[in-house]
């Protein structure tokens, strides 16, 4: 979009007069950073609990929204629309989670004459309905996992599910991202799993429909990033996200150690085919499961920017959020497939407020001190700030550490060093656990599949810190303790030297 002045000098105009970020945390900051780079005026909505967050400070405008819970505020379409109206917002970026894949939100914005930065409501509906999406992809001649397409209330359901062969996985049709998924290993567990899955599906998505697929073991989770302008689509390579815990991604990387150029071309062509068949507009991710035999099956398509998008950005030198904005502004895709070549390797670690030693229970607390890693090839996307209360109101993801190196071993080494330099005091995090995964010989070999953490998790957790490190930490804690310091200051050295404390 260019505006010509009288002397014919092109003056770049911002893509939008104002963009509102309807999200929080690290992704809100990530989008705001891009808006600043593109000289687009920005706004953000926030709940009171995020009042002092960096995103609120960094946006040109910030408007408070409220709700029955903090999360409910970010899901309140009416309230966000009224903020858009009040601020004169031209487009809304939903980030990921919250309203990012909500067709009703996209429709409501369209009715108000506001651009939703993402694909059309119809595409979100198609891809959001995992049963319909499977059928759409199968109709393109691409492989989908064997499944039962009957209603669970159908009397033939149990038999049809059993005929897939156990294990099977029960998934919510409106699900995705691991929610409402349950693995069933034997026939007598099926009924209970269906009930739980339907209950979770109703609660999370307001749609209790579930379906059953064969569950493959020893598979990799490989996803392909696509960008489409409604006519043409390109792929920006794959990401491997096999290191998962309870279907939640823990570590992601690009490229996948299991994908060679020929496989990349095949997967890329399949993903581009799906995007073009859907006349896809925006950034999307086509997820595949990749079996040990080298087969791949379509899993689902996500119509949002993914949490793990930075690994693709570092390897391909593409700003995916900027591309989303250009596509939403109706600019034709500038990227050419032949120019998109991977450069080096990138690894992302999800830093979470959780206690790996205690069943990964979420941790809460106040961030007392923070020092994020820096350096060449290191990117930290976080929404953390000192004084922040980490509560159970939101997802435990605190931030993402992404390391880029010329080779996979170089990227691993950089990520390990950066994790060691990541200082988050006041709330326990999984940083040491992430470092232990990266340092595991099986990870170094690229022997990652979705059971990696089931297989190696116990060994990773039992890695006790060295005894001398424990002693140093205790000495530091004792000397740093306010009580020790008060007594030190109050007590003349002579008395202290008498060993008055000892008993």
């Amino acid at each position, binding site marked *: 979009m260019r505006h010509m002045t009288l002397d014919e000098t092109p003056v770049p105009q911002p893509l939008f007069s104002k963009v509102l970020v309807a999200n929080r945390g690290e992704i809100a900051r990530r989008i705001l950073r891009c808006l600043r780079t593109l000289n687009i005026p920005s706004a953000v909505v926030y709940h009171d609990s995020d009042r002092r967050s960096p995103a609120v400070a960094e946006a040109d405008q910030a408007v408070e929204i409220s709700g029955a819970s903090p999360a409910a505020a970010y899901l309140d379409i009416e309230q966000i629309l009224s903020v858009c109206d009040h601020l004169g917002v031209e487009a809304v970026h939903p980030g990921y989670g919250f309203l990012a894949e909500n067709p009703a939100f996209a429709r409501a914005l369209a009715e108000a004459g506001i651009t939703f930065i993402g694909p059309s409501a119809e595409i979100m509906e198609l891809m959001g309905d995992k049963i319909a999406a499977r059928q759409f992809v199968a109709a393109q001649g691409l492989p989908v996992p064997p499944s039962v397409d009957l209603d669970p209330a159908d009397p033939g359901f149990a038999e049809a599910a059993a005929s897939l062969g156990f294990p099977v996985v029960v998934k919510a049709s409106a699900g995705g991202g691991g929610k409402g998924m349950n693995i069933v290993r034997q026939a007598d567990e099926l009924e209970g799993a269906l009930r739980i899955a339907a209950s979770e599906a109703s609660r999370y998505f307001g749609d209790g429909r579930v379906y059953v697929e064969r569950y493959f073991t020893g598979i990799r989770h490989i996803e392909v990033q696509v960008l489409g302008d409604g006519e043409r689509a390109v792929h920006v390579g794959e990401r491997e996200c096999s290191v998962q815990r309870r279907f939640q991604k823990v570590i992601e990387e690009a490229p996948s150690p299991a994908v060679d150029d020929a496989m990349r071309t095949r997967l890329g062509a399949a993903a581009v085919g799906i995007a073009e068949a859907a006349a896809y507009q925006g950034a999307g991710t086509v997820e595949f499961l990749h079996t040990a035999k080298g087969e791949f099956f379509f899993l689902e398509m996500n119509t949002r920017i993914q949490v793990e998008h930075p690994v693709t950005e570092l390897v391909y030198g593409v700003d995916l959020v900027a591309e989303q904005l250009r596509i939403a502004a109706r600019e034709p895709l500038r990227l050419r497939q032949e120019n998109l070549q991977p450069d080096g390797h990138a690894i992302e670690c999800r830093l979470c407020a959780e206690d790996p030693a205690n069943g990964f229970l979420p941790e809460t607390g106040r961030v007392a001190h923070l020092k994020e890693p820096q350096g060449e090839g290191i990117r930290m996307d976080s929404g953390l700030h000192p004084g922040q209360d980490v509560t159970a109101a939101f997802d435990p993801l605190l931030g993402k550490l992404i390391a880029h190196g010329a080779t996979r071993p170089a990227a691993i080494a950089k990520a390990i060093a950066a994790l060691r330099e990541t200082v988050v005091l006041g709330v326990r995090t999984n940083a040491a656990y992430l470092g232990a995964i990266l340092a595991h010989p099986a990870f170094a070999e690229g022997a990652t599949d979705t059971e990696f953490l089931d297989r190696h998790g116990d060994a990773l957790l039992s890695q006790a810190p060295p005894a001398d490190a424990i002693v140093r930490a205790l*000495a530091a804690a004792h000397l740093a303790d306010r009580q020790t310091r008060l007594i030190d200051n109050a007590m003349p050295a002579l008395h202290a030297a008498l060993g008055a404390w000892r008993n």
Partner: protein
Amino acid sequence: MRPTHRIDGQEHRVTPLRRSASQLLEVDGTQLEASLRWTGDHEAVLTVNGSEHQVHAAQDGATLFVHLDGRSWRIESLNGFAGRMDGGSGADGRIRAPMPGVVVEIDVRPGDAVAENQRLALIESMKMQTEITAPMAGTVTAVHVERGGSFDRGAALMELERNA
């Protein structure tokens, strides 16, 4: 006083023996000379037996958070300050949250009689639902949370009075 600290459930002894420019400490039976030189509000240099280590530290009551040797440590001082309340429901009939989370459903109201192991509430944490059940038969005397509300670990969710 026998200063005791805890890391991941394991107790350790730190006894100050002598203080001059540095302190002579005995940590779990090992003696060492240690000093801490503060370079910022939360940053310091720890010298242990002559070698220097960068330290980041912060304190929350009796809990010290220390970043040292490439990892963060959460160290609780077990004496000198009031002990912390742990999660878990006790025989006192107070139903405590085993983990931080959000209330999905509440099944009971004050005055309700409940059987042992009866479900009292459904909570959600880490995208996973967990049932809170009655540790004993009794009567619900108070409910401190409401549906949709969030809570920290160890928070009192409800009170139960044992049947006479």
